[in-house]
């Protein structure tokens, strides 16, 4: 099984990648560090899984080369689990992408990364409610310190795909 790490540029995909696989790809503090993709492996239970660090993309309508790579990766790996990494301090933008990925029918796990920075900025996110609305696992993470990564990995094998209509229904009902 394949795991795709997707998210906006500069949300920490590569840091999460390194944490999960123990690899050492370049991390830097500016967006657009990953323009090609990286591959690594992780063993969950008895299964060896391939993890792919996808270049950052704002949406699934590509506007540049790196985004094209990202969208193609998703299209070619329809049966993979997508870990959608969101910058908790800019959660709205991230959720837009997450919904787009859910809409395409992929199995999704949402990682709310940079959770510590969001706390510093007094941004409170109701994780439980988000979980209910989206119907997919939502895990707060701090990739630079490794917090939440174990839980994130443990949620991957249980991920299921969700119908966008049911997400819409949950939003309307709350």
């Amino acid at each position, binding site marked *: 099984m394949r795991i795709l790490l997707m998210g906006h540029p500069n949300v920490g995909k590569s840091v999460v990648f390194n944490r999960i696989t123990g690899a050492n790809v370049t991390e830097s503090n500016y967006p657009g560090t990953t323009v090609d993709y990286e591959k690594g492996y992780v063993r969950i239970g008895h299964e060896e899984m391939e993890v792919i660090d996808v270049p950052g993309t*704002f*949406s699934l*309508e590509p506007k540049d080369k790196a985004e094209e790579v990202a969208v193609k990766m998703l299209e070619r790996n329809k049966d993979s689990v997508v870990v959608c990494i969101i910058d908790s*301090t*800019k959660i*709205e*933008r991230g959720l*837009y992408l997450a919904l787009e990925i859910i809409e395409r029918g992929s199995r999704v796990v949402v990682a709310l990364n940079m959770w510590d920075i969001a706390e510093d900025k007094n941004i409170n996110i109701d994780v439980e409610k988000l979980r209910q609305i989206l119907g997919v696992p939502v895990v707060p993470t701090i990739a630079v310190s490794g917090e939440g990564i174990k839980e994130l990995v443990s949620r991957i094998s249980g991920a299921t795909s969700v119908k966008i209509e049911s997400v819409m229904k949950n939003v309307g009902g709350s």
Partner: protein
Amino acid sequence: MEKKLSEMKYGAQGIVKSIKGDLRNKVAGMGIRVNKRIRMATKQPIKGPVVVTVDESNISLGLGIAENIIVEVEK
């Protein structure tokens, strides 16, 4: 007062009123949508891009895009 995003002054704030049809999806991924609060951060001279702040993050938009976003500017 309604203005094109490209005509906003430095530091001006406002609420996005409308976005021209096909642009809507393009800018949605960057966090710009109708009813969102937006602030002009920088404007580059000679038809250069504009930088706006939405939800704590800066986004630079080409003039062609900025001209097609209408903002209700606050005094």
